[in-house]
């Protein structure tokens, strides 16, 4: 069984095409969960510019996906994160998880998006219509969301 698929790319992705690619020719998948993160137009935002650390970012995503693969009985997993300049309405991140049953697919999908927000080296800069820009600050609520998946000591 193949392991997780990880991609960091500037190009847009298509949820339908990625779902079809993950499930094509398979008869062992009973549930496919998906999460798509989109660029919101908060406070007059004109664009988000996403920066990453080539090499480390892919390694970090692979580690997070491998962790999900080890913790849940997954039969498929795709994680795609875009970089570069994105305008409101565009997709930023895709997480797909497949399993024989829904619980593993849904839980691992939530785990992956919570963990990649705090454990993968990406940085967002917001550009506004007036020409101002600012770096997005990390949120304590994201740390708390990731922490709920910590294994008991």
């Amino acid at each position, binding site marked *: 069984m193949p392991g997780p698929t990880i991609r960091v790319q500037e190009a847009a992705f298509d949820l339908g095409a990625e779902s079809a690619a993950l499930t094509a020719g398979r008869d062992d998948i009973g549930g496919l969960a998906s999460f798509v993160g989109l660029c919101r137009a908060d406070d007059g935002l004109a664009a988000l510019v996403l*920066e990453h650390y080539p090499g480390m970012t892919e390694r970090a995503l692979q580690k997070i996906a491998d962790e999900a693969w080890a913790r849940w009985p997954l039969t498929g997993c795709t994680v795609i994160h875009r970089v570069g300049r994105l305008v409101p309405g565009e997709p930023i991140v895709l997480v797909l998880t497949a399993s024989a049953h829904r619980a593993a697919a849904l839980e691992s999908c939530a785990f992956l998006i919570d963990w990649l927000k705090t454990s993968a080296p990406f*940085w967002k800069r917001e550009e506004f219509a007036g020409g101002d820009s600012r770096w997005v600050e990390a949120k304590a609520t994201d740390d708390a969301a990731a922490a709920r998946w910590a294994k008991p000591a």
Partner: protein
Amino acid sequence: MKILYFAWVRQKVGLAEEDVTPPASVTDVAGLVGWLAGRSPGHAAAFADPRQVRAAVNQDFATPAQAVAPGDEVAFFPPVTGG
């Protein structure tokens, strides 16, 4: 030692990367931060509050106590904001 900077740390330092040869007294990430901060006003501004800066050594997240050695790739950046 190869040093990489990302996001606002890169903007404040004014460099995306540089090759440096710290003195032998620099043995960990915290020591490296202290030494780098003395290289220019931009470096000093980037590391003015070290608690706001995260580090990676050889592409793994690192604590201030993590050892560094010649030949390592060390990166400094703000807390991550992907997803």
